[in-house]
């Protein structure tokens, strides 16, 4: 009970109006992503070229239309779905690959450590956007390519984080105890070490989601991300750019949601960090 109340206290202390706003925005994006097919919006890919470049308030198109007469609101909301699928997918790949490398390297040490951590160094040696461009150019654009590419790109941040935490705890008594009780190395890693190094990894998740959205938007903007006509925010900015003078909303709206979503995920990361890190609570008690 004491632990629970301390955790709730830390959660309360980690909140402020800006962070709550960010968390609510993320919640709205997630809900919209799930419910968008039920909202009765026009098909985001359906063209109606005679109604192209309609401004905000066009009948039947609250946010207007693009150069193909496609509904901007529908494309923004369906675009959110693509953004979340890609960023969650990429983050999941990064989490699995990164934590696996970090756990193996940190816990087993010796040559395993050399192999895993040098692999991480090699990935880090490439500028992310250059490596992403290279892979996407070779394998072609598309959602699966994006998820795998970005997952690999972001795995080092999880690998290094996990490695550092595992090295810290691998010789502690409770890990020794697990071994003494006859648990296998794998079981010790998964049931004893992993739960004790999970907090900073969890904090890293929303930050990686934010970075994924940024990179996905950039690649889609460059024509190397989501394949049109599938809606994507970065693609919408690229498409809208040519008609920016006729209809500024085509660029302003997707740009605004990209910025707001990245900011919101960053704020959620801040909440998680302050909430899950007991040392922050102790520091404030001093």
């Amino acid at each position: 009970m004491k632990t629970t109340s301390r955790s709730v206290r830390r959660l309360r202390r980690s909140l402020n109006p800006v962070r709550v706003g960010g968390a609510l925005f993320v919640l709205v994006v997630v809900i919209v992503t799930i419910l968008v097919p039920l909202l009765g919006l026009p098909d985001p890919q359906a063209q109606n070229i005679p109604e192209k470049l309609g401004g905000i308030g066009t009948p039947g198109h609250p946010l207007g239309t693009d150069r193909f007469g496609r509904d901007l609101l529908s494309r923004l909301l369906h675009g959110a779905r693509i953004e979340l699928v890609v960023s969650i997918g990429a983050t999941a790949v990064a989490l699995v690959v990164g934590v696996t490398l970090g756990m193996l390297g940190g816990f087993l040490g010796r040559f395993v450590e050399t192999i895993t951590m040098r692999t991480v160094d090699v990935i880090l040696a490439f500028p992310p956007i250059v490596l992403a461009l290279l892979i996407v150019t070779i394998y072609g654009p598309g959602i699966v390519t994006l998820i795998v590419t970005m997952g690999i790109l972001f795995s080092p941040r999880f690998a290094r984080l996990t490695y550092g935490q595992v090295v810290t705890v691998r010789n502690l008594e409770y890990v020794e105890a697990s071994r003494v009780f006859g648990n296998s190395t794998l079981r010790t890693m998964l049931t004893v070490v992993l739960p004790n190094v999970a907090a900073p990894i969890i904090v890293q998740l929303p930050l990686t989601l934010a970075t994924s959205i940024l990179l996905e938007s950039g690649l889609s903007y460059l024509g190397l991300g989501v394949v049109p006509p599938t809606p994507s925010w970065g693609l919408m900015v690229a498409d809208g750019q040519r008609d920016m003078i006729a209809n500024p909303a085509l660029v302003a709206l997707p740009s605004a949601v990209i910025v707001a979503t990245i900011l919101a995920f960053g704020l959620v990361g801040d909440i998680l960090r302050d909430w899950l890190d007991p040392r922050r609570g102790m520091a404030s008690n001093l």
Partner: protein
Amino acid sequence: MASRPRRWISTLGAFGAALALVLTGCSNTAAPKPTASNSTAPELKIGLSADVPDLKPSRDQGAAAMMLDTMIHRGLLGYDAKGQVVPALAESFKASADNKSFTFKLRKDLKFSDGSALTSANVKKTLEFLATSSSGAKIGATMSQLASVDTPDEQTAVVNLKNANVAFPSYLADTTAAILPDKSFGAQGTSWEGAGPFKLDKTQKGVSFTFSKNPNFYDASNVNFDKATVTVYADGQARLNALLAGDVHLIDFVPWESFDRVKQDANLTLDPQSGPWMYLHFNVAKGGPLANEKVRQAIALAVNRENVAKAAFSGQASVVAGAPISESSPFYNAQLAQGWKQDVAKAKQLMAEAGYANGFDAVLLTSSQYAFHQDTALSVQPDLAAIGIRTTLDSGDWATRQQKAAEGRYDIAVAGSAGVVNDPSFLVNFVTGPAANNRSYGFDDPKLDDLLNKGLQAATDADRKAVYDQVQERIIQTVPFASLVGRSQAFAYSKKLSGFANIPGFLTFESGYTLVGARLQA
């Protein structure tokens, strides 16, 4: 401690703001301060739509390479501002009565930009090179008819063809028929030296080309620029911004959505010409549905060309529903020009007759590098879906698109091209010859080839008209390509630049020829 979250917020905010700026292209306007408009020095600054890493003699490398070709190289013949064939390195030429032999008299004391002499031996070597299939020459189909080149003296070259070709001089006026120095035929196959009005001094890979006037050019007194700088602006808006800011005097490929913006600027001239045409071509080598001419006919009948014109070209394009022959051409046939007028019901019927009533899946190759190519693909995608052809876009960079098209790694491809010449004989390049990135992969129609040959050999214009009517009928039936629209192609330039002109029709990309004689006001 409380400052760290704030730092996070500000960092993310800064990233977001930077993203918005980058994505909206605002950085494009952060170009160097305009200097060109204030300059009195005779230096011409051009904004070009694409980089040309390797200028390969004879190849079709696109509009940007053709602009550089006209600056560096010259052929026996060229074009004037109205698109008439005019003498260039040859001061005169004469065709034999049967149009199988052409005698070219070279100007005296011709030299390449490096000072070496240019003689009939260079003409012979160049034309023989163009005739080899390994050269991949843009005019390869025409040059394959070369029988011999005789050089009775250093100033005379007699070109003998296997078959008559009344349009042969037009082909030799193309930029890729430039006469090249011997070193251009080496293993590298690139040619940055020629006998044109400028010589290349410096390149910054992917950024710019710096030229100076070639004192050895035969018409050097008419070159009114001591220096010329060509800067690559791949993005259309960036290119336009460079012109609006006065960083350059001339740009190619004015974005269609920006035509009105240029027209409204009192200091700029918009020079559009209706010329290049957009079309779909097919991979028939796979032997699947696209090898069936009924399926290709169905596609040609299914597409809504008005939509392509509006969506991809902001209405600055005209519908082409048959072979791309201009209304102003004596070979235009109003009825055949509507041979593929949209008829979705008939298209569905043809799909059923071909055994594809339930449609099929296909890869639609295009390129995101040129937005109008991708927009064209996006515009036809729902039309194809309406007759059951479910397409997935393959929209990579331009070089990849070209490579995939040349290697047959697609099902249907969007292409934009211009004939080598305004004469309908240009159609041969889109229906026959070795695999190329701008025609249907594996397509072969000997009957059509035969008709096109007959057109070149016809004795009178009336005979040629009759043959080209048959050519158009055959194209509508076998669909070696499905025409979409004829797009307006515009240059925009400062009002201080005079003498430059956009050459009409398919010759728009040859317009660099008119830089000779053009001048800048102080």
